[in-house]
Each structure stands twice: as structure tokens, then as C-alpha cells.
């Protein structure tokens, strides 16, 4: 496969307000190669989630893409009509959301939510779709999937629900998965399991991952390359190993230094002084 899977060039996202347009993303550019894991890291409000939303075309108004282009598998997707975009969403680009508690329809069975997603993207019959749904539940590590498939979201624990969300994101076999803070809402003990599940599954199915998180530790473990975002721009982007060892941008340097380690004996935790400029 030639060329990057996802190519973002000079992406500019603005919010229309009474006082004029607010620039939320200012000239963001990056590529993701097929099968690679790109981490996107930064503080809250830096624009990480917005980037993901812009890629799949789900920016809520008053936000809009004001410039730049997004290419997926060679073709431009930032200016597609919604009907075409819908085929790409879920089917070729999957999304893992942050809060599994509120992201699953509480009044619908898990199985139904899975089968409808599969049916939306694959030409299968109802029964086949259901069988695939059960298989997926098993793949994400839910015990006795054929029994639990008819359960409601509130009957699952937080970690289980996130596994279901991962299944929902992958069940149509997309080539790219955008994982927006997949572990932030989970217990620390569960986070590691979910991250390793994500890593294994995407590797097995050959999907690339855009892993958005503010947890540098997760990036270090999981990502191939990483983009550091700050105030709507990419401050630094490169191979994870290189960046960690030899950060060039002062913000990245601050980030690396701020990670508490057990090895170094220090009296105070490092902080990056000041705050990000508000929009």
C-alpha cells in the first residue's frame, strides 16, 4: 500500500462566536501509516479530541473546518457529504469513545447495538450479524458472550463496557481506529488491561490507531510515533523513542520531565510553569 493511510494537512478548525471566530486548531498536520499507532498527547483543551472529531466529520456547530485538507486512503474526506461520510464512519474509520458509561444507549441491548453496527456496514443477514457480534464479544474478553449479548449496558461493569465499546469500534473491521482517551474514565487497575487489549486487537486486524490521551505513560508503551499538541497546534511530532530520549520543543521537554519516575530520587515533582493560552 503506497502513501499514508490518513493524511492531515494544515487543518484549521474554528468556532463561530459573537466576538468573531475562535481558532481551536491552527494548522495541524500529520500522517498515519497503515497499521501504525500514532499517539496524540497534550493537556486538556489542547485540541486532541477536536482533531479526532474533525477527521470523522462530527464537529458540532458552531465548530467547523475552516481550512486545510484531510485525506483518507488517498481521497479527500473533509468535504464529503454526510451520506458518503456515514459509510466511512464505523466502516473504515472506527471510534473508541471516552466514557463508556454514557456512550452506550441505556435502553438498548448490547447485542442489538452491535448487530446494527455490523449490518450498517456489511452485507450480512441478521443471524450472521448476531453470530459475529457474539464472536466479537468473545474477542474483547467478555466471558460467556452468548449469554451476555442480550444484556443492557447497566448490567456491565465499567471495564466490561469499554470492552463493548472497543468491539463496537472494530466490528466493521475499519482500517483506522481513533481512540479518544480510551482509559481516562476507567480504574487504574483496568486501564492496563484495556490498553493491551486495544494493542493486540488492532495488531491482529491490521488497523492503524490514532491514540488520543493525556497519559504519556500509555503513549510510551503503545505508540510508534507521537504528536505533542499544545494550544491547537502540534508542538513536536516524531518516533516515540526519539522524542522521549531527546525532546526538542521546550514544552515536550517539560512534559517528559514532569513524568514522575521511581528511579530518580527527587524532592519535588516537576511542573510546567504557566498555563496554556485560552482560545
Amino acid at each position, binding site marked *: 500500500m503506497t502513501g499514508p493511510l490518513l493524511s492531515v494537512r494544515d487543518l484549521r478548525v474554528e468556532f463561530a462566536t459573537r466576538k468573531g471566530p475562535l481558532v481551536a486548531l491552527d494548522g495541524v498536520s500529520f500522517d498515519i501509516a497503515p497499521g501504525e499507532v500514532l499517539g496524540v498527547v497534550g493537556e486538556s483543551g489542547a485540541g486532541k479530541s477536536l482533531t479526532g472529531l474533525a477527521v470523522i466529520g462530527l464537529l458540532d456547530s458552531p465548530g467547523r473546518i475552516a481550512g486545510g485538507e484531510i485525506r483518507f486512503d488517498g481521497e479527500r474526506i473533509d468535504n464529503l457529504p454526510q451520506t458518503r461520510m456515514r459509510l466511512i464512519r*464505523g466502516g473504515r474509520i472506527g*471510534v473508541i469513545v471516552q466514557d463508556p458509561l*454514557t456512550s452506550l*444507549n441505556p435502553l438498548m441491548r448490547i447485542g442489538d447495538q452491535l448487530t446494527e*453496527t455490523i449490518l450498517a456496514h456489511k452485507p450480512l443477514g441478521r443471524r450472521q450479524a448476531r453470530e459475529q457480534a457474539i464472536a466479537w464479544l468473545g474477542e474483547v474478553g467478555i466471558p460467556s458472550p452468548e449469554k451476555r449479548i442480550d444484556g*443492557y449496558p447497566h448490567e456491565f461493569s465499567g471495564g466490561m463496557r469499554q470492552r463493548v465499546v472497543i468491539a463496537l469500534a472494530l466490528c466493521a473491521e475499519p482500517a483506522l481506529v481513533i481512540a479518544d482517551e480510551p482509559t481516562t474514565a476507567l480504574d487504574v487497575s483496568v486501564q492496563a488491561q484495556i490498553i493491551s487489549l486495544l494493542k493486540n486487537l488492532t495488531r491482529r486486524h491490521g488497523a492503524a490507531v490514532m491514540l488520543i490521551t493525556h497519559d504519556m505513560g500509555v503513549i510510551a508503551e503503545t505508540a510508534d510515533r507521537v504528536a505533542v499538541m499544545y494550544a491547537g497546534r502540534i508542538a513536536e511530532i516524531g518516533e516515540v523513542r526519539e522524542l522521549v530520549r531527546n525532546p526538542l520543543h521546550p514544552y515536550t521537554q517539560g512534559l517528559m520531565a514532569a513524568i514522575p519516575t521511581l528511579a530518580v530520587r527527587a524532592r519535588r515533582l516537576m511542573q510546567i510553569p504557566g498555563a496554556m493560552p485560552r482560545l
Partner: protein
Amino acid sequence: MIAFLLRRLLASVGVLIAVGLIAFAMFRYVGDPVNQMVGIETSAQERAQLRHQLGLDQPAMVQAARFLMNAARFDFGVSYQFKQPVADLIAARMPATLELALVASILALAAGVPMGVYAALRRDSALAKLFQALSLIGISLPTFLIGVLLIYLFAVVLRWLPSFGRGDVVRIGSWWTTGLLTVSGLKSLIMPSITLALFQMTLIMRLVRAEMLEVLRSDYIRFARARGLSEHAVHFRHALKNTLIPVITVVGLQLGSIVAFSIITETVFAWPGMGQLFLQSIQNADVPIMAAYLLMIATLFVVINLIVDLIYVAVDPRWRGHLNRA
């Protein structure tokens, strides 16, 4: 589940008894029952006899108990004004009110829900904005004003519809009369039912719209879109169901208040129902009727509340699980 049901039932009975006691207090202590019932010439001795006959000299608790037990058997005493049993008076007028209330409720739901859904899904369309404007009018204008305006337009100016009464009615069984089977009956039903329904209709419309907009903003709708589901699936399979469930509660309670609002409508259109009877009783201080009406409305509301709670529990899977564990 059973425990929950029993608790709700007990609470309902409690409310009924409380209201019953209030009704009793009204009945017994507002004005003097005996003096209301007899003429001026009746001697003091006859009054005392009547008092004893009615059991009015017994302790208050006993009287209250008797009142409640009688009420349970639909015996509400005799009207001061009409000198007839209150129960008979109410029964004669109940079909008129119930028919009106039913037609109005169906109208309100059948129009309100689709309008609300449309207004939410096509927020920026001209029609949706029209609905919003009309809904503001429907909710602002007092019911009686709408009735008067309708009469002016359709009865006085256009002369299409009758302005008072029920038209010809057909008797069904020993007790029920219906206006649905005659042309004049149906014609007479149109304006009153629209008047009565308008407030509820706009309320339902606004509620459905607000609730649906709220649902459409939720995370699970966003995730459904992110999974590439069609707009149709998102709107109707996900959003609609989640919208209607909280709406059920409010709608159910509102339907009960239709019977209360019928008082106004019946007055505007001279509709021979219970509401008109109640109003006359207020103007004439006919306390037995007032007390009976109060008790009846209370029962109606309590029953409706109970049914709505049950429906809510049956429909929302989160409740079922919670109750099965409780």
C-alpha cells in the same frame, strides 16, 4: 417488584385518605349541613332530630369514618341545591365529561408527539419555527379565551359549528350517553375538544421537542453517529425511544389534569358535564358536591399516577433490574 408495588399502593391509599379527610372537613364544617337542607320554618326540635338522624352529633372521628366508608360506596350525600343524591347528579353528567376528555387527550397526543419530533429533527425549518410560535400561543392563552375566540370565529362569523351543548346524544346501556354517533353530536364535540386539547397539545409538543433535542446531544447518540448508523436509525431507533420514556410520565399526569381543565371548557361551551356541575356548586356553596368532586378528582389523579409509575417501570430496563435486586 412486588414490594415496590405494595409501597406505591399504600402511598396512594394514604393520599386518598388524606384527601378524604379534607373533603369530610369541608362537608361537615363549612356551613351547617342541617341548616342548608331544611327550610326556615323548620323547628329547632326537628332540626335536632335531623341532626341525630344524620349522625351529626357523634364524635368527629366516627363521622369521618362514616363519611369515608360512604364515599367508598359512592354515597356522597344529598346536594343542598338540587335536593338529589350527589352520586346520581355526577353519574348523569359523567359521560359528557369523559367523552370530551378522551377525545381531547387523543387529539393532544396524536398531534403533539409528531409535531414535537418534527420540531426537534428539523429545528431550523420554517415549519418548526411556526410550531414553536404556535406553541407559545397555545401555552400562553388561557383556555377560556381560546374557546371564546373559536366560538366567535366558527359559530358567529362562519356559522359552521354550534356554540353550545352536546347536540343529539344516543343512550347506550342503562347509563351512558354518547354524542359520537350523531352528526350534531360530533359537530358539537369539535370546538370544545380542540379548546381542551390545545394546552395539552402544545405542552406535549414542547416537551417532546426539548427532550428529543436533549437526547440528540447525548454521548450515545454521538457514538451511534460515529459508528456510521443512518440518520433514520439514529433518530428513530435510538433517539425516539429514549425521548418518549421520560415524556410518558409527564403526559400521563397531564392527561389527568384535562379532566380538571374541562371545568373551564364546559363553562365556555355550556357543555353539560361534571365540571359545570362543580362550578355551580362553588357559586352556590353546595358543599356536598364540592366534596364529592374533590374526592373523585383525587382518586382519578392517584390512579393515573400509579398507572404511569407502573408503565415507567415496565418500559425502562434500568428500573426492572434495580427492582429485581431490591
